[in-house]
């Protein structure tokens, strides 16, 4: 790929990017969230058209205008969020699209034989007749790889393939990758996990803010150098002073169960407490019950057994409004779906929960004070650095970072005793992330208890006064936020 640029409106997601991948190598794309890795790959796969630049395959210039062309050219991608049809079987998912077979009807026997051959050759063990919903995340990934190979992929793109896997599964994945390059396939590996990058790569290209920083050989570099090139600054410890809170707990969970048979979407005997003025970080790989934990502590779902108490008071009514009454604030994991009313204005979203109060309406909500709402919103926009042309603008039209600031402003201004923040900086740029973190620390220092749930390990390390590790719905251990034992925590995150 030469001189690739991609513009969305005024924003360059990629600018003048060069990338070359040799046959039989694992080429890693390294970069932070929003560095432009996914955009670049979407161009290679034909989902986006580059604004400028050319793509060469085996020395010949190609134009990839659709995913089907990419498939025909032997480029296959395994997306971070799997592209599998859940209501279909493994077998059906693999043959879907099936360009390289003919005939009207599905020749199950022949296709099955082809797939089994491939799966044996590369050690990709799958059960063909199970539905996608019935198999594990690791198995789903093997299906994705098998699917790409079945469609004739010579160049395989793996987008953050280890994000949802346990350590053992990651080992298995690496074994498969080695087999693939051994057979002359090429792999573009996208990741920001240093350990894995150093482990498997042949060459590494670092992207930052849409541009290539450099391409280096694995042999000629080390983790520290890569990290500083990736972030553009030296890695340092936490910016924030850690605290040990001895204050009373604001929330306590006592052996809480929710759908405990489910490894990915349940909780099994979770007990924890968050004290006034501390940040408790929940570390763990995505999909180990974090979603359920956040929803339980905010009243969206009710536990199947066990107890929750606020300020030592036992909770009987599981309903978000009752929890909000008790002083719980929530920065939900999906801000557009769960946090904001996209079609309402910034101002409306800022006062979403408080229109009935005397500050914003007369006679118990019977007449809204629109001027007061406007004044308040402009004040908040300033205080929380919400960049918008006007507070009357639809909140949908703001950038992710500014949307998150709207939620943060609303939640923190409600004067909560507990803040539940789920992935509060996901998809945010560095500046916005920093701002969100600063606000959370300030809230902690005011005495707010904060439950921080994040799949971003660095964020957990940076922010937490105490760290709890969650794995398959269970709490695996508790660690101090001051000088946390990183190795131990990483192990706990994988279930050991």
């Amino acid at each position, binding site marked *: 790929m030469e001189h690739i640029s991609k513009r969305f409106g005024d924003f360059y997601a990629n600018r003048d990017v060069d990338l070359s991948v040799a046959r039989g190598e694992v080429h890693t794309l390294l970069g932070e969230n929003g560095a432009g890795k996914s955009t670049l790959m979407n161009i290679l796969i034909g989902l986006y058209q580059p604004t400028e630049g050319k793509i060469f395959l085996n020395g010949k210039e190609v134009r990839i205008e659709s995913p089907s062309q990419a498939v025909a050219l032997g480029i296959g991608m395994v997306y971070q969020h799997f592209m599998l049809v859940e209501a279909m079987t493994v077998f059906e998912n693999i043959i879907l699209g099936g360009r390289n077979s003919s005939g009207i009807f599905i020749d199950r026997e022949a296709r099955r034989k082809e797939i089994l051959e491939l799966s044996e050759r590369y050690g990709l063990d799958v059960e063909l007749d199970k539905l996608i919903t019935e198999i594990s995340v690791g198995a789903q990934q093997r299906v994705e790889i098998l699917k790409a190979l079945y469609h004739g992929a010579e160049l395989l793109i793996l987008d953050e393939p280890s994000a949802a896997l346990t350590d053992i599964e990651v080992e298995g994945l690496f074994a498969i990758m080695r087999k693939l390059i051994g057979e002359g396939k090429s792999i573009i590996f996208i990741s920001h996990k240093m350990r894995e990058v150093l482990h498997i790569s042949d060459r590494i290209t670092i992207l930052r803010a849409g541009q290539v920083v450099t391409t280096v050989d694995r042999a000629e570099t080390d983790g520290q150098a890569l990290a500083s090139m990736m972030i553009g600054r030296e890695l340092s410890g936490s910016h924030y002073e850690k605290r040990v809170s001895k204050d009373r707990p604001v929330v306590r969970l006592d052996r809480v169960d929710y759908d405990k048979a489910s490894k990915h979407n349940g909780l099994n005997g979770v007990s924890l407490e968050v004290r006034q003025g501390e940040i408790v970080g929940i570390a763990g790989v995505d999909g180990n019950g974090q979603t359920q934990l956040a929803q339980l502590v905010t009243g969206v779902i009710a536990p199947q057994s066990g107890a929750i108490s606020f300020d030592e008071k036992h909770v009987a009514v599981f309903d978000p409004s009752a929890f909000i009454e008790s002083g719980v604030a929530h920065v939900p994991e999906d801000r557009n779906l769960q946090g904001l*009313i996209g079609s309402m204005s910034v101002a409306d979203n800022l006062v979403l929960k408080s229109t009935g109060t005397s500050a914003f309406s007369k006679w118990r909500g019977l007449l809204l004070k629109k001027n007061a709402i406007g004044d308040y919103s402009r004040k908040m926009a300033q205080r929380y650095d919400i960049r918008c042309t006007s507070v009357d603008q639809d909140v949908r039209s703001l950038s992710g970072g500014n949307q998150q600031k709207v939620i943060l402003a609303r939640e923190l201004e409600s004067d909560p005793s507990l803040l539940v923040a789920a992935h509060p900086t996901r998809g945010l740029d560095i500046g916005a992330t920093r701002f969100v973190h600063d606000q959370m620390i300030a809230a902690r220092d005011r005495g707010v208890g904060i439950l921080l749930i994040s799949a971003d390990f660095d964020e957990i390390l940076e922010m937490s006064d105490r760290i709890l590790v969650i794995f398959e719905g269970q709490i695996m251990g508790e660690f101090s936020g001051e000088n946390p034992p990183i190795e131990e925590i990483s192990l706990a995150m994988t279930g050991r």
Partner: protein
Amino acid sequence: MEKLKRSLTAFIVPVLSILLAFAIGAVIMALLGASPVQALQYLLKGAFGSRANIGTTLSRATPLMFTALCACFAYKCGVFNLGGEGQFIIGSVAACYVALRSGITGPAAAILCLIAGALAGGLWGAVPGALKITRGQNEMIISIMLNYVATLFMGVVYTNWLRDASVPQTEAVPEATQLPRVVTGMRFTWALVIAVAVGLLLYYFLFWTSTGFKLRAVGFNMTASRFNGFPIKRYILTSFIVSGAIAGLGGAAELLGTQLRLINGFGAGYGFDGVAMALIGQLHPIATMLVAVFFAALRTGSTTMQAATGVPTSVSDIIQALVIVFSVAGMALVKLPEFEAFRLRVFGKRGRKEGVKA
């Protein structure tokens, strides 16, 4: 600035749609051998040409306003009430019973009729609402099925239970119970005043009260509303009941003011027309009422047009239908990112700079 831009787009799309629909209507008229200019002149004259004509237009707009406000209110809360027609009819049936069988007449009876109509309509609307929140069922299909049931039930009433001698229709509402005209010489009655009052009340409720604010939030995004502590099931059921009550009130008012008796075809088509008007009016109660007047004007005007030029009245139905086809597509179009990009390319980047302005 931002508000202005939004209301400008909200205004331009329906207006362009109406113009486009009339343009196609004119072509059809020409194809039928009439002069479009002349036909449109008669259309306009028929609708607004005299005090009497204006009165007729407003009188025809009245029931449309009720069903349009009914559709508007439910949709504001994110549920599709396609049962306006059934609720309208059931309201009129209830009112008819009170008017003919309660034994009282006069203004008190009229008020009782209106209350009965609203209650019956609300009850009829509660069925799809309740099935939606308890069984998660598709409220659209249920509410439409109930339209047919209501129409058939009304049939039972005017062919059997309240039948007026040999004719398949009910007796007329006693004169003392009827809603009087507001101005002599113009056909519209107090029903119009009630409709406008309901519309203004809805506007106030939706945009100036805390509960209305929350109801709109529920309509836009139910998940976020639940996460933010709003009792969404209660809002959905209530909005269905209120929406049904508005239509039921409309049915009662139409019976007492204009139709005076139940007869085959009473209320037919008002439900879907209401949905159309609410959508063209962008779910704004006041705009919705104006659209209702526009629809009514087309209908009254087209009678004059047919008499004078021979262009059939159903041309006006086509124009109405085209307005909805164009305006809904138009609203989707302006929301497309490609359209925004196009707008920016053509009109430059005014108002896109970042930063807070006081």
